């Protein structure tokens, strides 16, 4: 019963993406009259979704790479070692969980504008790398939190053995602990992929050049604008284009996912 309540509406979106414009004025539950794949080609080529797609892939992958490179060591150290300032750093990241992107986006933007101006460059805006960096930063609190609680569940025996063997802390982390945290890393990748892929507000503010836009921003151009004729078929085709990669990724990793989400889970 519950499964149906989910499956039906989703099937509905796919159905809608195959309809012709005039069919949208009829009952929303009617099956499409034919397979109107033109919606997809229109969205992909005319509405530039192809370019935006590549941009999105690029930004999302880069952001995830940065995020992992930065968050893994930090989470590891925070969960395994006690040192001065650890409490403060932990508290900072915990507090960071409550910061909402919606209100910090303008301050970040103004900061980047200021950098551009004082350094006489245009580097900081319309730059996929900067966008990815900001994405990674905003995801840090949650990611570190997740990884940290997973690291905390891992037994210490392995590390101690590595130390006895004279392994450096860096190698211990990279070769022993990180592989053990794999389920949790997969979870982190999936969660952040979803949020980066669908992110709209930051991308809209930072990417003002048309060729630099990402998929969710491009999708807005397909949306219904007030007082203008609607292009529903194209819009739903665009929505499906945005949705498919996340769906595929989820199906691929869903088995691993359950292992990795023991947030603050049971101590082993």
């Amino acid at each position, binding site marked *: 019963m519950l499964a149906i309540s*989910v499956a039906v509406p989703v099937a509905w*979106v796919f159905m809608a993406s195959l309809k012709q414009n005039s069919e949208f004025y009829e009952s929303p539950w009617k099956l499409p009259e034919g397979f109107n794949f033109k919606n997809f080609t229109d969205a992909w080529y005319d509405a530039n979704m192809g370019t935006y797609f590549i941009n999105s892939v690029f930004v999302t992958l880069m952001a995830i790479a940065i995020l992992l490179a930065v968050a893994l060591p930090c989470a590891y150290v925070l969960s395994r070692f006690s040192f001065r300032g650890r409490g403060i750093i932990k508290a900072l990241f915990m507090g*960071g969980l409550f910061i909402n992107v919606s*209100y910090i986006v303008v301050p970040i933007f103004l900061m980047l504008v200021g950098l551009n101006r004082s350094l006489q460059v245009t580097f900081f805006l319309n730059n996929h790398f900067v966008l990815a960096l900001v994405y990674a930063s*905003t995801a840090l609190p949650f990611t570190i939190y997740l990884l940290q609680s997973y690291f905390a569940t891992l037994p210490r025996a392995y590390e101690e053995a590595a130390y006895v063997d004279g392994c450096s802390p860096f190698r211990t982390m990279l070769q022993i602990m990180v592989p053990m945290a794999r389920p949790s890393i997969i979870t982190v990748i999936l969660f952040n992929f979803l949020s980066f892929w669908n992110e709209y507000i930051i991308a809209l503010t930072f990417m003002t050049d048309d060729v630099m836009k990402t998929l969710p921003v491009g999708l807005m151009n397909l949306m219904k604008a007030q007082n203008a004729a609607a292009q529903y078929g194209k819009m739903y085709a665009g929505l499906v284009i945005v949705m498919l990669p996340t769906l595929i990724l989820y199906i691929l990793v869903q088995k691993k996912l359950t292992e990795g989400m023991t*947030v603050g889970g*049971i101590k082993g």
Partner: protein
Amino acid sequence: MKTSKSFLFFCTFPALALFLIFMAYPTISVFVMSLYKWGGYSAAKTFVGLNNFRALMEDDRFIGSFRNSVILLVLVSIVTLFLALWCANALTREKIRAKGLFRVIFYIPNILSAVVIAAIFSAIYDPSRGLANSLLSLVGIEPVMWLGNRSVVIYSIAIAMIWQATGYYMVMYMSSMSAVPHSLYEAADIEGASRKTKFFSVTLPLIWTNVRTTLTFFIISSINISFLLVRAMTGGGPDGASEVFLSYMYEQAYTNSSYGYGMAIGVVIFVFSFALSALVNLATRREIVEL
């Protein structure tokens, strides 16, 4: 464990630096801006002290958005929590075929964008030919104006949020439930415990830390998701009846040329969610069951 300072430094510094630059600093400037009157474009910024906060107290629309946010927070969290626990328990403990399929299907709403969810629900809530009213008419109930009635609209949004979130938390609970050792259930079986007792005296205590953590997630995500859904489904209407925290912040900061005022709302959201989850954390503290 002891280790060299430089290792600790290299591990924490990049994360800390990014965090301070792109999260902490902007947040501080939000706090600062909340003390100013500024339209958002011109250079004219006037320091007004706590005036923005004082004005908030008297702003009926803000109070309405506050109330709506709290209703959604409480209602959605509680219902989602129960539904997710129940489904997770059923899927891990019971022998159900095609478990993987269920796991995929339940999670799907979580990866849909708010626009898709809004489109789906506007087809469901359509007053004359929507799914919801068609079902009601089968049992002979008068059609309900799901999005048109001021006192119903916020619950209509709550339903969409619950639909969206249940799968996510279910997957989360499933992961910790599957880590509960099987031997405990076998022991319970020998003692002849019912399903209910097994759930309340074995499963729930063991995943309690997990449940507690998700309570914080509920607070954070409900504020966020309610905004995305409200913006796509009703735009805060009719007549502001479904306005929530962030949607009202947006309206003030960007369309009413009151950026400073909007940021004051941002500060309230931050402090509110922070304090609430600290409170929830305290209230749900139990002795952790160690194995």
